[in-house]
């Protein structure tokens, strides 16, 4: 079983690499998402200009976050909503529980919410006798399997059809065990039927928010299944969980972000449903909730304002960085042991959980830069991972052996004569050892990580520097 902590990244990754089913799922996922995004970007000539504009909007908001949050609160309250401020996960959970208790809620339906995962609302509600039901198909599947999501927008990407059928047979006990569950339509229909009943019996609906509109006090979600609409319109109470950086000034700004969001995420021009909620049901309204609560969650984000990590708060959770990351593509989402996997998680998780609890994450990157290349919000993810490495080094969290090796090497690199002497020595020594190996080594000191999987190309005996400066610069490559 995968340990849900970033501290176990290495073991989790190794296990994931050996999981044939997971590898198959990841292979399919990668190509699909990458092709779809590429095509969507190509179809929109101004895509890159839109990205610049989207970045600008969020940068502006982050520079005036207090102002926009207060405006949001004022306008949300004016529309009959209630705004709650939660400093951390515990406060957010208590706020939700209190609302549920005040209305005597037994069942809660939930739209997909990453911040809901972050504050671990489901286990908390369950422990307090309230039954949360995930209504996004992927989330529903992983809830039945008792797993966390493995992707920001495709939470059950790691699960195959057969595993879904197994989960359904185990949990939908009222149906015939003999029923065929081989095709996608059958699975979908069964989930839909099961969820319809839950939608109708829920007392409270919880959703996330892709955007908070300061000007009107509205919240916006984008979904592809319509489950969000049923979650928030059928029950008497609607609770929105939103982290504070979700606020934007107005609908025009949200529209710009929506245009880059779906294209980056799934390659769609827009998600199927874009749903706006403004306040509670007014006299004369045909439907809508009697109470509309918005829980604004900080949970460590405001601490990032003004630091080298501020830009990570531009993230709109599209998942493009995951889809294009070679490390995520190799090990999948669960290996990261945190709610936010992939490159965004490598930057965000140490910020939310502390660097000491997530040390591997910013290190497990080749800095290939593909995440930054596709990020619609142009977040410099590799640069921020490097900032975490700098903190790790400065706080002496790096193993002494590594520190000393780095120091010695850097000292030599500052003394060219010593450096070139060392290089000549190494070239000669490795060449001698490589001679029997016909130009390659099967083992090198301290190189076990390399040679376990690869041969090590041996040097050719003399360094370039020494040959260049050799007897009258003969300028011939060594044999």
């Amino acid at each position, binding site marked *: 079983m995968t340990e849900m902590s970033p501290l176990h990244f290495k073991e989790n990754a190794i296990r994931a690499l050996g999981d044939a089913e997971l590898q198959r799922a990841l292979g399919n996922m990668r190509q699909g998402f990458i092709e779809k995004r590429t095509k969507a970007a190509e179809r929109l000539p101004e895509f890159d200009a839109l990205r610049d504009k989207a970045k600008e909007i969020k940068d502006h908001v982050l520079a005036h976050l207090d102002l926009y949050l207060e405006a949001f609160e004022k306008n949300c309250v004016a529309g009959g909503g209630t705004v709650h401020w939660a400093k951390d996960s515990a406060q957010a959970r208590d706020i939700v529980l209190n609302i549920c208790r005040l209305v005597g809620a037994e069942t809660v339906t939930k739209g997909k919410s990453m911040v809901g995962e972050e504050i671990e609302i489901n286990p908390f509600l369950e422990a307090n006798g309230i039954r949360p039901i995930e209504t996004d198909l992927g989330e529903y599947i992983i809830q039945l399997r008792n797993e966390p999501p493995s992707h920001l927008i495709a939470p059950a990407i790691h699960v195959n059809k057969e595993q879904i059928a197994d989960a359904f047979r185990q949990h939908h006990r009222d149906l015939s065990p003999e029923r065929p569950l081989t095709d996608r339509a059958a699975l979908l229909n069964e989930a839909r039927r099961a969820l319809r009943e839950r939608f109708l019996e829920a007392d409270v609906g919880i959703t996330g928010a892709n955007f908070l509109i300061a000007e009107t006090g509205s919240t916006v979600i984008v979904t592809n299944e319509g489950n969000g609409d049923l979650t928030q319109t059928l029950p008497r109470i609607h609770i929105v969980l939103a982290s504070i950086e979700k606020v934007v000034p107005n609908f025009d700004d949200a529209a710009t972000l929506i245009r880059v969001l779906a294209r980056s995420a799934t390659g769609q021009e827009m998600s199927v449903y874009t749903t706006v909620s403004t306040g509670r049901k007014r006299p004369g309204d045909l439907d809508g909730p009697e109470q509309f609560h918005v829980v604004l969650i900080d949970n460590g984000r405001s601490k990032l304002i003004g630091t080298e990590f501020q830009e990570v708060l531009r993230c709109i959770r599209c998942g493009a960085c995951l889809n294009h990351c070679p490390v995520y593509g190799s090990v999948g989402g669960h290996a990261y042991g945190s709610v936010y996997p992939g490159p965004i998680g490598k930057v965000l998780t140490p910020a939310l959980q502390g660097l000491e609890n997530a040390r591997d994450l910013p290190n497990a990157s080749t800095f*290939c830069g593909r995440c930054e290349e596709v990020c619609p919000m142009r977040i410099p993810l590799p640069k921020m991972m490097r900032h975490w490495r700098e903190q790790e080094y400065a706080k002496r969290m790096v193993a002494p052996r590594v520190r000393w090796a*780095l120091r010695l090497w850097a000292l030599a690199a500052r003394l060219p004569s010593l450096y070139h002497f060392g290089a000549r020595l190494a070239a000669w020594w490795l060449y001698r050892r490589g001679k029997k190996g016909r130009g390659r080594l099967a083992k090198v000191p301290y190189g076990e990580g390399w040679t376990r999987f690869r041969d090590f190309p041996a040097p050719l005996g003399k360094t370039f520097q020494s040959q260049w400066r050799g007897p009258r610069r003969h300028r011939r490559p060594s044999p």
Partner: protein
Amino acid sequence: MSPRPQNPSVGLFATCLVDLFRPSVGFAAAKLLEDVGCRVALPRGQTCCGQPAYNSGDKANAKRLARRTIAAFRHFDYVVVPSGSCGGMIKTHYPEALADDRKWLPRARAFAEKTYELVSFLHDVMGVRDVKARFEGIAAYHDSCSSLREMGVRVQPRALLASVTGLGLRELPGRDACCGFGGTFCVKYPEISNHMVADKCREIAESGADTVLSGDMGCLMNIAGKLLREGRAIRAYHVAEVLAGVEAAPIGQVKPEAEEATA
């Protein structure tokens, strides 16, 4: 395009990996540069660009090495690097690392301006469109991430390789994907690195190529090492070696006659 510079002085930043493992790349680079009239020199003061320190979080040493490198190459019109990785360190990360150093930041920026990856320098600055070289084989060109994303290298090596007599080129479907080298990443996370390089090698083999070329020794040692371990008969060369027509055994191998001698 700006006019082609006449006999510019070029400081060759040979890189640690070329210096230690593959001198023929350094000679190939010098030949390619001299063939188009560059005056090439190899300043004694050069060591490492500092990238290992920078990416390991040791910013103080990275800055020291950046200042050293800038000083060692200050007299040249251009600095040319047979690597997108070390080149990217200089071009992108020196100004970033020295951002809070009022004295050195302008120098770092000027230095970044005159620093180029080898093949893009030949193509974009010196206007080279063909080379007089011969190489029998079918090659897949591997884009190193830093060449691609930090140095703007994509069309240039393909354009010049197209002029090599006897050489056919194949594109890899995952040509935007990292090979899994990543500096210390490949020894810190060997299993993940191995997964990535195994994917890359499979793609190279499936492309029908008998040779893999790249502009970065890090990627090449990783890919060549994996190809050798898997026993695949695919040769690995630095792109400069093929463009310069340098005769050398493939990376990680010895010439057939030498092999017979040791066998």
